[in-house]
């Protein structure tokens, strides 16, 4: 546990220090790369809340990233530029969408839950493709971006970097706290033995739904930030393959572990960048690498770095 915490602390210390070093070597693009990795990590951590802690495997999580991104983009287009207002809107809309889809989806479990979340994900995806006024299939370039108290610090460069980093830290710490809280342990109890949890007196569907909504909201926030970073949204943000990528990050990192989703997300983004710069056909390596990791590294990356504390958040 202590080692776990140290790894987390080391990652964040590095992320905090890097922007101070980067200008010395002049690599703006590396900063962009880290922002991308952090954004993926935020979404992956949120997914870990429902997969790792809740035992609910969703194949439609990217849809909530999309809902967040599109909510913010549409609000921006209609002239709302304050990022805190956008944040509130994003949270409200994703929570609503998650509440409705989650209430229906949670009537199923296991593989059926996977399929129904996929179904809802696809519905949301196709909804985006039909938003003709906001680019439809082609997506939408955002000519104005969100501001923080009227200032453009969060629009690019270090300002955006630190804003994303702060969000990541809050997500990481928040999800970890949730895992340890009264709520979190009910959620894990329901994952381990749903019937027992119910006979202990817990309406488990309600707990799962709350977790689902929380995870969706966090994913929505990452969507808002992705929009702000890319200055562009398109339905591609919500494809089922993107949900697949998130699952890869979570499982690769180590399910339900403190740093798993974080490590998984960074691994994917950096691996893609390194492999793709070595070899244009990098997916020829990446695909088999996934298979090998599944077959031989069962506990995920977090397990390779620190022995897994079972059941702990």
């Amino acid at each position, binding site marked *: 546990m202590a080692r776990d915490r140290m790894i987390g602390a080391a990652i964040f210390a590095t992320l905090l220090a890097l922007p101070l070093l980067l200008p010395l070597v002049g690599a703006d693009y590396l900063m962009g790369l880290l922002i991308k990795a952090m954004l993926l990590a935020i979404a992956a951590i949120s997914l870990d809340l429902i997969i790792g802690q809740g035992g609910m495997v969703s194949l439609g999580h990217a849809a909530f990233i999309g809902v967040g991104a599109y909510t913010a983009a549409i609000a921006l287009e209609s002239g709302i530029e304050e990022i805190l207002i956008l944040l509130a809107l994003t949270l409200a809309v994703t929570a609503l969408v998650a509440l409705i889809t989650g209430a229906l989806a949670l009537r199923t479990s296991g593989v059926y839950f996977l399929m129904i979340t996929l179904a809802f994900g696809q519905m949301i995806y196709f909804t985006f493709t039909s938003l003709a006024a906001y680019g439809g299939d082609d997506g939408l370039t955002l000519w104005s971006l969100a501001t923080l108290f009227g200032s453009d610090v969060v629009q690019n460069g270090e300002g955006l970097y630190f804003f994303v980093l702060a969000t990541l830290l809050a997500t990481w710490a928040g999800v970890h706290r949730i895992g340890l*809280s009264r709520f*979190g342990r009910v959620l894990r109890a329901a994952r381990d033995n749903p*019937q*027992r949890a119910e006979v*202990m007196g817990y309406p488990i569907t309600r707990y799962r739904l709350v977790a689902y909504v929380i995870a969706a909201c966090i994913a929505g926030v990452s969507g808002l930030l992705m929009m702000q970073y890319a200055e562009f949204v398109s339905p591609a943000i919500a494809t089922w393959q993107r949900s697949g990528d998130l699952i890869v990050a979570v499982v690769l990192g180590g399910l339900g572990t403190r740093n798993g989703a974080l490590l998984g997300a960074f691994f994917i983004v950096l691996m893609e960048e390194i492999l793709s710069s070595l070899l244009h056909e990098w997916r020829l390596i990446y695909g088999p690498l996934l298979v090998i990791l599944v077959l031989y590294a069962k506990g995920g990356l977090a397990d390779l770095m620190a022995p897994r504390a079972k*059941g702990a958040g």
Partner: protein
Amino acid sequence: MLEIRHLSKSFGALRVSDDISLALGPNECHAIIGPNGAGKTTLIHQISGVLRSDAGEVRLGGRDVTGLTVWQRVQAGLGRTFQITSILPSFSVLENVAIAAQAKAGGSMRFFAPAARDAALNDAAAAVLTRVGLADRMEARAADLSHGELRLLELAIALAARPKVLLLDEPMAGLGRTESAALIDLLAELRAEVPMLLVEHDMDAVFRLADRLSVLVDGRIIASGPPAEVRDDPGARAAYLGAEA
């Protein structure tokens, strides 16, 4: 405390509970015996809400709980154990019981305070564990317990919610002679505090604990009354006890 009226349940053409009625008074232990497949566990499932009944009524402390879900019945004071041990294997023994206590205490929609350091819950859980004799195993992972310890944990989880009525589904299942004896002593002690409906094969336990005894055969209660009376009931003997003797 607990009253069951005309409870029925069928799976297709198979009638597993047929118009069962029984009542459980305060500080009473009512044992249900019967051959395998008689519908004992089904009855427990129906009372606890795990299975929906086709007809009939379950009343707890005068309140109709038939329409309630499993967790609502637990919240209303109906505790139960499982015939096949059902615990949370990846949690510690203390946490297993603390989570059960938490359901009673409320506040489960709290997201930030670390629950493992919640003194009130831990104290309540520790008290129950001490009571059942697992005080020295509190920090162990539940999955690492022996079978006998698991049966005790099962009981502790049920007790932690401070139930008004306890449904015990073969608590002695798989226990050795000395373990059984200890558990019988514990249940005898508890009987003074909480009325219990006991499904059990172990006749020693039944005759030691039960105030009343019902014999369930093919989903029907064929005899009911004080243990001594039922023991002498010719129908019951023929259907069940005789077969055992």
